[in-house]
């Protein structure tokens, strides 16, 4: 790493399990990554990989039957898992904010947009209703909602999907948080609206020198905005590196599989690669490496022993036994273009 | 299906309901063995004596009655009225046993027929919508606007007394709930993609309603129906109590309670003297309704948290 950036958030071996009737679901079972000040970390994974649960674990928003059972969440040097609920409440919304995927369900339908943006302001900064409303109008304007003086009194259902997401961003940014966690914020939006929202988020963060954790399954979005990327599979981080490394020199078979199986605009694909099989059922994880049933480099060792997180170099971690095999394939040139 | 049965048996309340229901089923099946009929119509409660006052439990059959039965060449299998007799010497125990059959008849037939009418009307209304829906729903509203007991009474007055007329009245004014219930479910189910998929395959409307919509929406209706079996029996009893139901001496719990109405208070100086005339048929009604309610309640609980498609 060239410039020594300040470490804002450090996740070490985070484990969150759900104790259900049918058994223990190890939704997050060993997640490690770092977020530096002013940078964007992208968490990539498919449904069921544990990325949302990771986000909720950081903010400790989980309820029974979910419980964080191990690891450290070091924010500005302090372990959030050891804080009291009161202390967490002071952090949520003020220092760490979150925006969600479905703006219609994340926004309360019976309160006006203005009220919801004001809520955090009134709570964290003890503003009066009028002051908070004034600030809300400013915030709505900042996120690009036209005629904010009118919109501030409207209800979520009166706004379009893109507008609602902007309102949610306004809510999240209202207290100038230093870390924003965005859980699939643009997945439900049209692609032209997505472009607007991503652009907005990037501008706002640059202005505040804030950090972003962007959770998504879309590798295209990640390529545009992330600085560092953590690839998650079955509750674990299987590869963690900076953007260029992940896209040009990946080392985990899953990362490789993802990159070669998605259709893309920048090249003519002869044939899409296929990752056979499907995401495992969290109640019946395979033994050994969780990816082994779908992996084409799998060996007997993979079926029995789970690989540790291996440090390739500073800032590049991979969880795999067959690194040399994968590296050979990558060196050959793995994108099947024309 | 198996999971539902397992859940039904593991839940305490529904287990009680099932045991009670089982008890009633056994009685109904073995009625001829428990209390063999003493006249051509098995639902005719035999008299134990000619006493006007109800006789207490354990009273023996009077001699003149025994002579009559000997004359009629009917074998008397029991000597004592275990639960006493009602006014006119009718054996209460006999009435309880054969009344169980009557209760099942009333409950099952009225619920099945009113459910049939309601489901047919409601599903046609929901599937086709438009003016068909409007007309059918307005008809439903008209029927709903009649206070049930009054309407049932008027109908039985017009049709005449008798349990079958009571059942007609119960069916005529009991189908609306099912119609509305199934209409609501089908209105939402018909928007499901698999319905459109069936249309794309070329499946015709009747088949779509029958094969796709009804199986996916009938469950709440069946739960409602289960709960209603008990209440139909109570309503029939109410109508009997009001004098429009079964005739005197018919083996029907409602009729028995009704017939005991003169004796509820008891005679002067002996309050509650004739408690057995009201208590026994009354407790049977209560337990019968309770059993269906407990089962229906548990069925509803099983239904609610279940995601569709897990059954």
């Amino acid at each position, binding site marked *: 790493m060239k410039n020594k950036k300040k470490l804002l958030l450090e996740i070490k071996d985070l484990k969150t399990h759900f104790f259900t009737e049918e058994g223990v679901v190890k939704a997050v079972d060993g997640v490690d990554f770092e977020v530096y000040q002013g940078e964007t970390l992208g968490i990539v994974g*498919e*449904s069921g990989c544990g990325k949302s649960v990771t986000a909720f674990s950081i903010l400790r928003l989980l309820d029974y039957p979910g419980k964080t059972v191990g690891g450290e969440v070091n924010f500005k040097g302090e372990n959030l898992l050891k804080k009291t609920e009161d202390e967490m409440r002071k952090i949520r919304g003020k220092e760490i904010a979150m925006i969600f995927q479905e703006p219609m369900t994340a926004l309360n339908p019976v309160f006006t947009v203005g009220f919801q943006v004001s809520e955090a302001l009134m709570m964290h900064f003890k503003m009066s209703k009028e002051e908070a409303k004034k600030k809300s109008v400013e915030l709505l304007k900042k996120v690009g909602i*036209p005629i904010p003086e009118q919109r501030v009194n409207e209800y979520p259902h009166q706004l*379009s*999907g*893109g*507008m609602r997401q902007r309102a949610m961003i306004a809510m999240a940014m209202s207290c100038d948080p230093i870390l924003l966690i965005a859980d699939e914020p643009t997945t439900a939006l*049209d*692609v*032209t*609206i*997505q*472009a*607007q929202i991503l*652009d907005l988020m990037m501008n706002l963060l640059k202005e505040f020198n804030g950090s972003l954790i962007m959770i998504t*399954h*879309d*590798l*295209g*979005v*990640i*390529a*545009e905005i992330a600085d560092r990327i953590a690839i998650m599979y079955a509750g674990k981080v299987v590869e963690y590196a900076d*953007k*260029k490394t992940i*896209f040009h020199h990946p080392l985990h078979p899953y990362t490789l599989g993802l*990159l070669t*199986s*998605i*259709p*893309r*605009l*920048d090249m003519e*694909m002869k*044939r*899409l*690669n*296929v*990752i056979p099989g*499907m*995401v495992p059922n969290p109640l019946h994880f395979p033994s050994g490496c969780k990816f082994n049933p779908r992996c084409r480099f799998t060996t007997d060792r993979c079926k029995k022993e789970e690989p540790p997180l291996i440090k390739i170099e500073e800032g590049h971690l991979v969880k795999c036994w067959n690194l040399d095999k994968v590296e050979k394939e990558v060196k050959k040139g793995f994108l099947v273009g024309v | 299906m198996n999971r539902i049965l397992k859940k039904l048996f593991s839940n305490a309340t529904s287990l009680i309901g099932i045991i009670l229901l089982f008890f009633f089923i056994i009685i109904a099946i073995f009625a001829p063995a428990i209390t063999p009929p003493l006249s051509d119509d098995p639902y005719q409660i035999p008299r134990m004596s000619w006493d006007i006052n109800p006789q207490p439990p354990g009273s023996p059959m009077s001699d003149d009655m025994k002579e009559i039965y000997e004359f009629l060449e009917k074998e008397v299998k029991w000597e004592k009225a275990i639960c006493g007799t009602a006014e006119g010497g009718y054996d209460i125990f006999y009435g309880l046993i054969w009344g169980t059959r009557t209760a099942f008849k009333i409950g099952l037939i009225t619920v099945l027929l009113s459910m049939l009418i309601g489901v047919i009307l409601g599903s046609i209304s929901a599937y086709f919508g438009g003016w068909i829906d409007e007309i059918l729903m307005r008809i439903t509203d008209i029927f709903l606007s009649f206070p049930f007991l009054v309407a049932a009474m008027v109908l039985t007055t017009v049709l005449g007394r008798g349990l079958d007329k009571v059942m007609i009245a119960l069916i005529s004014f009991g189908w609306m709930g099912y119609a509305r219930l199934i209409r609501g479910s089908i209105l939402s189910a018909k928007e*499901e*993609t*698999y319905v*459109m*998929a*069936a*249309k*794309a*395959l*070329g*499946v*015709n409307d009747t*088949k779509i309603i029958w*094969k*796709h919509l009804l199986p*996916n929406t009938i469950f709440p209706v069946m739960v409602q129906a289960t709960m209603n079996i008990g209440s139909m029996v109570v309503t029939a009893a109410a109508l009997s109590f009001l004098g429009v139901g079964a005739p005197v001496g018919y083996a029907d719990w409602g009729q028995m309670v009704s017939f005991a109405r003169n004796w509820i208070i008891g005679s002067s100086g002996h309050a509650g003297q004739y408690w057995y005339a009201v208590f026994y048929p009354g407790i049977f009604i209560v337990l019968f309704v309770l059993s269906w309610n407990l089962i229906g309640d548990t069925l509803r609980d099983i239904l609610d948290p279940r995601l*569709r*498609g*897990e059954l």
Partner: protein
Amino acid sequence: MADLLLQVKNLVKYFPIKKGVFRKTVGWIKAVDDISFEVYEGETLGLVGESGCGKTTTALTILRLEEPNKGQIIFDGKDITRIKRSDMQKERKHMQIIFQDPYSSLDPRMRIKDIIAEGMLTHNILKNTQERYEKVGELLKKVGIPAEYMDRFPHEFSGGQRQRIGIARALALEPKIIMCDEAVSALDVSIRSQIINLLKDLQEEYNLTYLFVAHDLSVIKYISDRVVVMYLGKIVEIADKKEFFNEPFHPYAQALISAVPVPNPDYKKERILLQGDVPSPANPPKGCRFHPRCFKVMKICSKIEPKLKEIKAGHFCACHLYDK
């Protein structure tokens, strides 16, 4: 030159907006507003646009799962726009559809063998049950599901598997054309390529024609032969795939392409950010429907609606920029 399989002429589909106690029609959602295009045998026509553009309504209207208000649908030489219900049922054998949501497109109470056999049962193909289930087994194998699973229920399968079952159901009637309505949008990323490859293989084997409706341009680029772009009920551009991505004519198409994120950190592209939201199809802008958001807007655009014209061979565009 391949044969013309499907011709859509001036197709219109409006949905009424009803308000008030008496459900009076107070307005119309102009979901599909006078569109015309052709589909040739054996090709994959990509129909792309964002939400509200009318692409799904188009696919459903062609199948007459929604009744068209105006226009013509000519399938395999036959005008099927207004034919009787019973005649249309017969035509349905030849035109099938795969839906977006694998979870609600299969009846949860039917075994998958019956779901797949339903079409054959309806059209009296293969008279006896055993023959039909044999065919079901073959179809399941073709789509990559073990035939022994045919007695199972939909909830026992994953999303990707359910989509395969949906494909098997569509194939059962041996159709000539299949509408793929966002067939892979609801699937996980690692499953998408499986289904896309399957669709491509089946197309080759059975000489199928696809009308592929999607909002994901990357998928459209991979699978289509020709591309049709829709915006607010209108077609704004039609072209061969290579031609389209090489040189999109319509400003909306250009913006759409530039908005798609590419999984390549070094990829440089022209940044075109559209302002504002997509307007409501109940109240489309006058003149060119795209003009309020267009970065190349001219005075004429707000007054006169541009017609779809052939600018280059096989490349059509509806934009005043190309008025000669």
